[in-house]
């Protein structure tokens, strides 16, 4: 796939996830940002006449300033050619029931994964959601 976007305020977590994605070698480019705003800026910036439109976004929920839910609110407003093919929400521990209910009402979320990412998790996502492109 063209590009994977990682959104997490914790730099070591971003680094670790980037390392795993490189190891699996499934994306031409991996971009890691430390805030929801930086992610929006990235998605909205034209490069060589087009938007980066990553195939996959990994999103952390618990972030300061703009948390994952607030990011998704803003993300919804983007033009369709600025959005990613797929959004995965990353979790440290499983969702509490309130968050689960909230997550079910948000269309933009395609799936949930545990963090940090591992090669197994990434491969599973590839098989499940990107099988046609392998």
């Amino acid at each position, binding site marked *: 796939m063209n590009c994977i976007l990682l959104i997490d*305020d*914790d*730099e*070591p977590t971003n*680094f670790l996830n980037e390392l795993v994605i490189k190891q699996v070698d499934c994306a031409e480019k991996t971009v890691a940002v*430390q*805030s929801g705003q930086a992610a929006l800026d990235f998605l909205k910036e034209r490069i060589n006449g087009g938007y980066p439109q990553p195939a996959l976004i990994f999103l952390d929920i618990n*972030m*300061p*300033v703009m948390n994952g839910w607030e990011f998704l609110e803003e993300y919804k407003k983007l033009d369709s050619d600025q959005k990613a093919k797929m959004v995965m929400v990353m979790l440290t521990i499983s969702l509490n029931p309130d968050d689960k209910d909230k997550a079910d009402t948000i269309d933009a979320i395609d799936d949930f994964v545990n963090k940090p990412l591992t090669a197994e998790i990434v491969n599973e996502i590839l098989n499940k959601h990107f099988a046609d492109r392998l």
Partner: protein
Amino acid sequence: MSELDKYKRKLQKAEQKVRILEEMIEMRTRELYSANVVLERTNTELEQFAYVASHDLQEPLRTVSNFVELLDKQYKGQLDENADRYLRYINASTSRMQTLIKGLLDFSGIGRNKELTTVDCNAVIGNIIADMDSLIKEHKAQINYTNLPSVTAYETYLRQLFQNLISNGIKFSKPSIAPEIHISAIQQNGKWEFSVQDNGIGIDPKHHDRIFAIFQRLHNKDEYEGTGIGLAHCKKIAELHGGDIRMESTPDKGSTFYFTISN
């Protein structure tokens, strides 16, 4: 039936009603008492849990950070660039966890002297300023206060409250503008209302309702360090003193925190 009998009957009925009411009150009292016993026990258990968790967590954490320090001292530069970066991440994460645990310990108020005494707030602020001397000098901060009252309070808690608000005022100052903090108090409805005013970056109104929630942070770690415990702790302390805490703020102008203490 004679008039007298009528009255006797009425009196009997009334007495019966009183007895029923008395029984109901007694039952409610007993219920409340046992509910209180349960609450007290739960509270003690929670305190113990927090104590054990944080103490037992601290030990392995300290071991990790000690060994990382050793690795760093003895092998830095001998490994490759990646290894140095990994060590840096481990160091940053362990010290963040240490700060978090310490914050949680403070928040749960374990091992604190819980005794109400007459506390001279001028002396409290004076002590805080002496303690924070290096931070204050580093930021060229000015802390003004005059004629603060003496209040009946839990001294260590009250001190923590003031200290959190003052250190926030210094931490969230505007770049290139020296922090100025004014502390004052007025008497209102039988309570003392204290205000701690700063000239810092202020807080966006859309965040005003969540700043007192625990673990709520408004900034990335690399902008402003923090655990998200400080203001939640302040709220808890104000409530412990029969008061409350609130704030007024204009972004880019500064914030004022108001809290009350029962007289």
